């Protein structure tokens, strides 16, 4: 008998009562009168900067304006012309180390906690974490209220990886002092388009 069968057999042998799966239909989950405003507030609480792309403004100029000092900019988005590295064509994830600004696209945002769903849409997902500063482009019409609504929309895509990001990498592991910029991006800027 395989280990798997042995373990499953042991579980089958000891379970006495089987409990039904609860229905979640009656869950009264929080919804917001203005989900976009709630999303912006939650993002800021999580440590993100939120900017709206002005009508007619160019995304490249906007990002450049936010990070005038940036040398290495990584992105595979077709509308980004200022990129100096492409996470689709780098030889290894390690080559992305030293990226000043990574620019990626989010699918939708979550009003209750500022999470943005980022399905992997590039060969090296390292760009989402290894960049010193992360810029996430997000359509302001793509905001859901809460995680229940969010998980009905989650799609990992072909790469089989996706993450909700809410704010920069952070830690309070030294004496409970909150510090932004632990192991991944030190800043997150959400650009609403």
């Amino acid at each position, binding site marked *: 008998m395989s280990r798997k069968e042995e373990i499953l057999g042991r579980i089958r042998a000891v*379970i006495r009562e089987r409990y039904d799966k609860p229905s979640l239909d009656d869950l009264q989950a929080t919804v917001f009168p203005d989900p976009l405003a709630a999303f912006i507030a939650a993002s800021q609480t999580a440590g993100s900067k939120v900017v709206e792309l002005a009508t007619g403004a160019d995304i490249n100029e906007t990002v450049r304006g936010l990070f005038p000092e940036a040398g290495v900019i990584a992105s595979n988005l077709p509308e980004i012309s200022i990129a100096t590295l492409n996470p689709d064509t780098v030889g290894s*994830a390690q080559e992305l*180390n030293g990226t000043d600004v990574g620019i990626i696209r989010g699918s939708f945002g979550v009003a209750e906690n500022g999470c943005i769903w980022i399905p992997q849409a590039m060969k090296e997902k390292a760009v*989402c974490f290894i960049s010193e500063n992360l810029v996430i482009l997000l359509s302001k019409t793509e905001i859901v209220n809460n995680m229940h609504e969010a998980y009905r929309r989650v799609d990992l895509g072909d790469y089989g990886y996706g993450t909700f990001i809410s704010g920069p990498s952070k830690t309070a592991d*030294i004496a409970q002092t909150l510090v932004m910029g632990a192991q991944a991006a030190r800043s997150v800027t959400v650009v609403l388009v």
Partner: protein
Amino acid sequence: MSKHSKKAKAFLKDAGYSEWHDATFWAVREKRDNMSHGLPEWEQLREKASQIKLHTLSHLDQYLEQFASQAEKNGTIVHWAADAAEFNQIVFEILSSHGVKKIVKSKSMLTEECGMNPYLESKGIEVVETDLGERIIQLLGQAPSHIVMPAVHLTPDQVGELFEREGISDEIGNHDPTYLTYRARLSLRNEFLTAGAGMTGANFGIAATGDIVVCTNEGNADMSTSCPKLHIAALGLEKVIPDYDSLAVFQRLLCRSATGQPTTSYTSHFRKARPGAEPMHIILVDNGRSQWIGNQQHWKTLKCIRCGSCMNTCPVYRRSGGYSYSYFIPGPVGVNLGMLRDPRAHSGNVSACTLCKSCQCVCPVKIDLGEQIYQWRQQLPEWGTEPASKRMLCKGMSTVFNHPLLYKTATGVLPKKPFHSLKLDKDE
């Protein structure tokens, strides 16, 4: 006096430190309260979470099969480990078959439970913890004092001096947490770039999709799996839940309960290896769990999602610290898990409870932690681990109450003396 009480007594000798410890965890409890009060559906979420866990655990055979077959369909390699030794061996075999000499890993209490790090190190593999708190205690050769904030017992000076000794920081005397965190970032960045494999635990396994879900604030699980070409994920059997609808309930509860944030910075789903990488390995670990599910009185402890809120609120944990407990998981849930693991070894922890039941009022999956500890106390005679003084006292009381004449004599004598004048023997 129990083993826990003795260690707690030593902990309390430093009054300033113990007051700081108490206040620190109470502040986390208050942050959690702010979160729970901000969601009108909080109690409904807890009830649903509890019901989903009861359902899943009582159908665990089916959900594990579904999870494993989905994961295999996704192209991952699924292993089953009966115990800690088997788990460690599986990890080592995967690493050595890929010629890996160094791994970066994100926080996993399961690998702590199995003693994986010392095992791999004995086999010549370097293990680098990448959660900042875990890295600090790893360098100090210590165990975590809390499951979510493993290095919370240390002061910035202690961390700063450690980093100076290890060559991580170069400004001697700069013990500012922001500076120290930045220096650790630089040091760990180098480890991420050069490790041969990344290892993660899992907060959840999703049966419907085969996803492994890992929640971190630091992004270290994502860094650990973005650079190395090999990803090994380890999860205890009880981490599997049915589907995304269930996950939404737990995701909303976990971080709010743990640190008082509405979410962790990263909630990451791993379904398969990235392009050009080796297939992902998932190790499902039993190590006692399949037996515990059959423990009629205590199986519900397996509902735990490891948020640590029971520790933060516990008046005994706050005033005795994580190292006063004999099991590697402290606090109310640790008392219960330790007793499931080995009641003879961990009976000393059941005294670390005032039965105030604050823990079960905050537990996001509604485990009756205090009731469980009370029940364990009743079971101590089964293992002969009840305190001798209490056994004698109960025997004596039983004799008195069972003999009316003796009782009348005793009660006829006692009230004549005021209670405070009675000389009681000092407790042992």
